[in-house]
């Protein structure tokens, strides 16, 4: 995905850690901002349609697993980004109205030429036009580009989020080298603030960030899982990168390696056919204000947002000195799922009396601090 030039400049021109922290905060916001659209996709797939009576996953089940697996990795990336922020002595800011995008809206960094992300039910169109667009890999990561940028040489190539992450990695190396030369380090954060929940993530994916090596490894993992390698759709753990993982839903078949073919992979695996009759028809780009005051529809929309905001508060606390709070946050994530279900089970009752569409109450992911 292309990003706006100014953000790259912010990294390249940074001369202190304090210059870098706002970029890391934006990375945290970006990793979070993809989660609401993905969760709308995941939550709208009705659980009863995910397995056959024999317990085999259906097309809906495979699609749900695909989306869920990406959401889990985005949560991992958010954790890594928060650990980086803490390692650099910063404070991740999660519990604030400005943390939450106003959907339909742009992603942080003006990603994809300010393309608008919509909250919609799961469909092939939504996966193709929104999910894949969010995860679209661009050109291979080009180190010479960074050097030319730093030297103030004009460049033709599009700047991508992958490039920004690598620029960030490079800048950390530069700043740390400067600090080391003075017998100091830029990794001054309190190690007790690192969140390393080995109960939820594998040790190959999450570690405490305490120095340049662990920081760069974290950034590399985010890029690898998101964009994959430059040569094939699988990341270094042989999982399809997010873009190709989503493409399976659009192609209608699972991606599989075919070592004897050229290219050595194809969408030739198990069928992934969405059964749209078993997907909640959610109000598109919902807002609490869409629903009539005093109705259960309005209540459930508000309740969902209140639970979502509670979860942000829990995560904020977790990443600001209470790492054990991650378990409470996990409880909050399951509650969010039940709350989504209760909203989606409720027929939308419109505030606009002229509206007569039959839709289900939507998941609007608004920042709501009062359960009204």
């Amino acid at each position, binding site marked *: 995905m292309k990003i706006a030039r100014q953000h790259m400049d912010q990294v390249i021109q940074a001369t202190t850690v304090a210059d870098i922290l706002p970029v890391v905060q934006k990375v945290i916001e970006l990793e979070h901002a993809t989660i609401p659209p993905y969760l709308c996709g995941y939550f709208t797939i009705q*659980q*009863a349609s995910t397995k056959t009576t024999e*317990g085999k996953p259906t097309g809906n089940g495979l699609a749900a697993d695909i989306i869920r697996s990406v959401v889990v990795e985005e949560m991992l990336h958010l954790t890594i980004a928060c650990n980086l922020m803490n390692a650099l002595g910063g404070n991740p800011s999660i519990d604030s109205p400005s943390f939450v995008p106003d959907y339909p809206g742009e992603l942080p960094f003006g990603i994809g030429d300010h393309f608008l992300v919509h909250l919609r039910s799961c469909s092939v169109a939504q996966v193709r036009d929104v999910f894949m667009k969010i995860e679209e890999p661009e050109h291979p990561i080009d180190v010479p580009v960074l050097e030319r940028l730093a030297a103030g040489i004009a460049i033709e190539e599009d700047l991508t989020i992958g490039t920004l992450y690598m620029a960030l990695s490079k800048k950390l190396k530069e700043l740390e080298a400067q600090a080391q030369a003075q017998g100091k380090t830029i990794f001054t954060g309190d190690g007790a603030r690192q969140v390393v929940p080995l*109960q*939820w993530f594998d040790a190959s994916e999450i570690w405490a960030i305490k120095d340049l090596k662990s920081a760069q490894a974290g950034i590399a993992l985010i890029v690898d899982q998101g964009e994959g390698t430059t040569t094939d759709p699988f990341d270094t753990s042989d999982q399809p990168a997010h873009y190709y993982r989503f493409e399976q839903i659009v192609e209608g078949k699972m991606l599989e390696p075919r070592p004897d073919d050229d290219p050595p992979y194809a969408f030739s695996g198990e069928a992934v056919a969405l059964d749209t009759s078993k997907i909640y028809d959610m109000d598109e780009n919902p807002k609490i204000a869409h629903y009539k005051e005093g109705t*259960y529809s309005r*209540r459930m929309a*508000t*309740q969902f947002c209140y*639970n979502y905001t*509670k979860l942000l*508060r*829990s995560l904020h*606390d977790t990443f600001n000195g209470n790492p054990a*709070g991650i*378990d*409470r946050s*996990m*409880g*909050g994530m*399951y*509650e969010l*799922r*039940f709350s989504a*279900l*209760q909203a989606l*089970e409720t027929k939308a009752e419109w505030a606009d009396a002229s509206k007569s569409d039959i839709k289900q109450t939507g998941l609007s992911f608004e920042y709501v*601090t*009062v*359960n*009204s």
Partner: protein
Amino acid sequence: MSYFTIPRLAFSGNFQADVSTVNNDVRHYDNATFEPRFQNPQTKTEMNGWYNPDGTGNFRLFGLQIHEALSAYGADPAQDPATGLFVNAQAERSSCKIVDLDPQMQVVSTLFGLRIVLTDGTNDYLSGLYTASAFRDMANGRAYPPSALFMSVLTDLEWGALATDSPTLMALKTAADANENKLSINLTPYAYGANQEGPMVGSIGAYATGDPNTFVAARRLVNETGPSAKVAVGDMMADIANDTLSYDFSNAINLNSQLQVVPIGEIYGAILKQGDTVTGLGTTSASVTDGAEIGAKLSGSDIKLLDQIDYKRSGFLNVSAGIADCPLDANAQALIADHPVALVEKIGSDQYQIIIRETSGGLYARADNFVNRMDPPMKGLATEDVRFKVTQWGKPIADVTIVTSLLGTDMTNQYWGSGNDGPNAPKAKYHDINTPPKKVKISSGFTSGADGWASCPISVENPGNPRVYVDGQIYTATYGIAVGNASAKAQFDLIVIHAREAQDYANPPSWDDIKPFMQQYDNLYPIMSRHLFSLADETVFREHATLLTLAFSRPLDDPNHMPATRDLSTSKRQAVLNWLAQYTGQPAPVAEVPQSNAQVAVTSVDTSNLPKPHPATSKGLEMMLANLEDGDRGKTPVMRNYLSSEIERIKKGDQA
């Protein structure tokens, strides 16, 4: 000092008790006869899974707002910035849970894991943890369906920077700082309707060190019946702080079907000048005689008349949470120290009729930790002290004896809503509670100390599973003050025990060991089994080993505790954790045992010569039954069973 004295914060709004109702019928616990239709909502002809089978167990507060922050009598609440604050639940944790003790004990529903947060939406002013507490004093009999009191204390108080702007919050902080860092709180929910939502009022006030956690040990005004067209006010409390007597009408005032206060005449606060006579306290001939009874007509010189109760004003319930204040002058303060508090109706130019008055002799005793989840080991005892607070005229009193009596199997259907099966009753039989009686020991009599506290030691042995398909056993005991003619206890004042079943499992246990009770949860909570994953599927259980280990090892008062119903014995929860540990790569956490370390031996004193507590009469209960609404929502079916069987019991002369 308590939640309804000054200083206090009064609020109102709404709640949702999103309970699952499949477990409302104990017979649904029987896996062998469980039918898939029990997970469906009830229809006109079939009860199925009752009215909300997909419930989550969540208890939510919404639209709750402080409408009256009162720092002192006569202060203007509009000038206090705490007026207008929102009363939020949780803030950063999962929703609090509302939980019955057992399918055969549905009159002590308890809130677990509630955090109360006062906020303007941006800044938190005060937050505190609500100590798990069961509702009390379910009131019925008026046109509006039942209400109840959820009284408790707030602990772990955190004061926001802006709290200093509020005189009421600062007065409460001063009180909390001097009193164990606690505040007193009450929530009065009124019956819920569609979507399990209903209105609620409540208040927060000062707590005094030495007070109980789950009720206010102050002045109880007794009425054996709930409020109704014929009975102006039901059982209620009055309490004094800062030279002001406050009455809590929230659960006691008569309401029409629109939740509007029904006029009951011109009502005044009052102190009865003719005192009661109390003789022989601490002896077997202790006795009390009322100076003036309910209904007595008195002249102005017989009473110390206090302020008129302005209950007719708009906002009495929604703004003031149904609380009325009467300042006490020096004469009143002296008189109230040993004379009954009352409410009187003005019926003539100098004539007043008592519509409700304080307990006989001002004596009041109530159990604090009256609901007990007890986990005996395979062999040996689980013990607990049920703590009673005894007061006279609102002050602790020594040498008052309380007697208890274990109830029998005739109570089996009192605490749940059986008997409304429709044409297709579940096939399982239900089994008696309170048996075998030898598994439980409850002290038959005990006496208060100088601080008013009295301890009732109880113990249980492993009950096994006398009810065959549902864990453990329920035991109930009644109690009363052993003073002749002392007022009858409040309805539902009981000692309640859930004796959980101990089992020896291999470590690790087999799936067959734990499958039966996980199947039960799968049947009873379709929100999980239909919409998330099946708890009765070994593969799924294994795949979620880490998540389930977390949930099954949470303390009881953690909102994420599993099972949400908090009814699984410790040995069974430990078996689940041991099974899961095979797949988490971590040692199994130790399941928390929810019991005290009470070591007091249960002694049975000879109570044969003690005076019997005042017998309850069936008259009030009959009136409540006659006024009970139709239908099966909420606690109505339980109330119906309770009232009809209690009336029958009283008529039989069983005055246990």
